């Protein structure tokens, strides 16, 4: 084992593949921020890159890059702990490697097509080869089929490995969740001539992926991370995972109804969507109780301070982004005005960052620690850890700043465009040119630049943290548990 240098001999087979996923995830994270900044500039200077790289293209690349880098991060995280969790080598690792290269090549081609072809005639050829046209899942049909095929390989790797090795609560929930992850994507792959029916199924991908399957996937990743980072007992994290899954599915599946308010579905969706959306913050409040309990009863010692810092950021970001910002505008009585305004973008920025980006970044730190030979990443880092602290501060400040700016813009839009002007075309422009809106967009750009600075620092830190470090990582010794090779205790 090499200590203090990036050496793939420090990694098992699954972890080597995970590092590839993490690397592409970071590249896509940069792309997300870059295209987001370009789109933010276009709000202030609409002529910027007009007819070269239009706002619609930048926005599409900004959101698609986000969705894909998060998926890369999740897949990487699962490959990372697969061997350790199952106790055996990854089944079909070669196939997994091929799937990675196929997916990455496909993502590269799709991005090039988005950038250089951008649009087509709006016929079947366009749909199959250029852009499917559905917001957030614009990938052409061939790429859709490729994504499903790669996800099936991923499922085979995961289910095959656990079947050969040992099953646990985490692995069981994870494997079942992957079935849903693959299956739900199919709902966004067929067309109907009725736009209401089309949107009905489209939301299955957009909402149920994010508020059901992704949340559960992150729950599994968090469960494993907490055992690794803090030495939490398996029995406890698994019990909480089951509770979280029950609460997420119990509220999240029919919470889908809040997207059905205004697409032409029957009126009963107002009640269903409103009621279940009101339940959606409950899992988050449950987590508050358990976090407080653990903080009060245990004295935390973590193996990796940056990772723990990002896990804590995840807790707050998820609570405020998904819980507070979501519930503020989810009931139909208010959503009538806020739906589709910058208010939605405000909620989207904080909740995606808080719920998903943070946990991926935490995992990147876990990965780099092991990649460098499981070196020390606790307190008293060589440079006092200023880079990870500043990058975390800047990224959080930037995203919170953008969230507040977009909230102000969305509030003004809801007021002027919707409530006062009655959603007319002139109302749209009146809202877009109002000083509140333009000022908010200016500050959104400034905060976007702060976010970009945080990202630059994050990349620098991930590339250098632990370099030359000779101290071994703080060890969290794990008690034997029935059927499990190692569980947890703590050491100083």
């Amino acid at each position, binding site marked *: 084992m090499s200590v203090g240098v990036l050496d793939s001999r420090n990694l098992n087979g699954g972890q080597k593949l995970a590092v590839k996923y993490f690397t592409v995830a970071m590249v896509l994270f940069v792309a997300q921020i870059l295209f987001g900044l370009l789109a933010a500039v276009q709000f202030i200077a609409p002529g910027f890159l007009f007819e070269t790289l239009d706002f619609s293209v930048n926005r599409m690349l900004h959101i698609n890059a986000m969705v894909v880098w998060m998926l890369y991060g999740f897949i990487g995280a699962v490959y990372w702990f697969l061997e350790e969790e199952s106790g055996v080598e990854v089944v079909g690792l070669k196939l997994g490697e091929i799937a990675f290269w196929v997916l990455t090549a496909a993502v590269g081609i799709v991005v090039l097509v988005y950038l250089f072809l951008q649009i087509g005639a709006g016929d079947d050829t366009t749909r199959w080869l250029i852009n499917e046209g559905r917001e957030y899942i614009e990938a052409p049909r061939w790429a859709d089929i490729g994504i499903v095929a790669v996800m099936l390989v991923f499922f085979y790797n995961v289910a095959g490995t656990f079947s050969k090795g040992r099953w646990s609560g985490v692995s069981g929930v994870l494997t079942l969740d992957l079935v849903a992850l693959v299956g739900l994507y199919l709902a966004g792959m067929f067309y109907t001539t009725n736009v209401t029916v089309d949107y009905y199924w489209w939301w299955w991908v957009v909402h149920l992926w994010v508020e059901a399957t992704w949340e559960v996937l992150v729950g599994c990743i968090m469960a494993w991370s907490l055992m690794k980072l803090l030495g939490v007992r398996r029995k406890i994290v698994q019990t909480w995972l089951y509770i979280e899954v029950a609460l997420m599915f119990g509220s999240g599946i029919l919470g889908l109804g809040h997207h059905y308010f205004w697409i032409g579905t029957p*009126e009963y969706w107002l009640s269903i969507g409103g009621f279940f959306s009101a339940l959606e913050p409950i899992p988050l409040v449950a987590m*508050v109780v358990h976090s407080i*309990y653990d903080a009060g009863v245990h004295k935390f010692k973590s193996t990796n301070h940056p990772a723990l810092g990002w896990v804590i950021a995840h807790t707050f970001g998820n609570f405020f982004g998904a819980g*507070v910002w979501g519930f503020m505008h989810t009931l*139909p009585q208010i959503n009538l005005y806020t739906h589709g305004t910058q208010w939605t973008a405000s909620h989207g920025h904080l909740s995606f960052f808080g719920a998903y980006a943070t946990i991926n970044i935490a995992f990147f730190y876990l990965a780099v620690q092991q990649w460098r030979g499981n070196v020390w990443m606790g307190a008293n880092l060589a440079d006092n850890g200023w880079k990870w602290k500043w990058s975390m501060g800047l990224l959080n400040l930037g995203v919170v700043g953008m969230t507040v700016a977009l909230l102000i813009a969305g509030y003004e839009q809801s007021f002027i465009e919707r409530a006062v002007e009655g959603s007319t075309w002139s109302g749209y422009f009146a809202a877009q040119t109002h000083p509140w809106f333009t000022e908010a967009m200016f500050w959104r750009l400034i905060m976007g630049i702060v976010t970009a600075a945080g990202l630059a620092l994050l990349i620098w830190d991930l590339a250098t943290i632990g370099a030359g470090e000779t101290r071994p990582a703080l*060890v969290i010794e794990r008690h034997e548990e029935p059927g499990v090779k190692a569980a947890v*205790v703590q*050491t*100083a």
Partner: protein
Amino acid sequence: MIEPVQLEDFFLNVFSAAVIVVSGAGYAGFYAWGKIARRPGFVISAYASYASLAAAVWVLAETSHFEGFWRVAAGLMLIGYFAAPLAIFRLCTAMHAGEHSEHDRPIANQQQEEEQS
């Protein structure tokens, strides 16, 4: 079936919705901490948070013109926010019972373990 929020109630409506979730977390957090630290002051703060939550639910219901089903939903929300943290705290206590004896086992280092093995 629904009557939209009036323009003059717009801020009150969204603010009260935010207060519901934040007070819900405050109630849960203060309650759990008060019980763990055996500090009655925190438990009182928890109930003060819940009172703020209940007031916010009332404001939300009024400004959203809740009637019929929606009033029932608001009532259920009040009950749910009150009971859920209590139930979860009991669950935490039960789940962690007997844990300390396990955690009191001697501290060891992975390298030492590897050397021994």
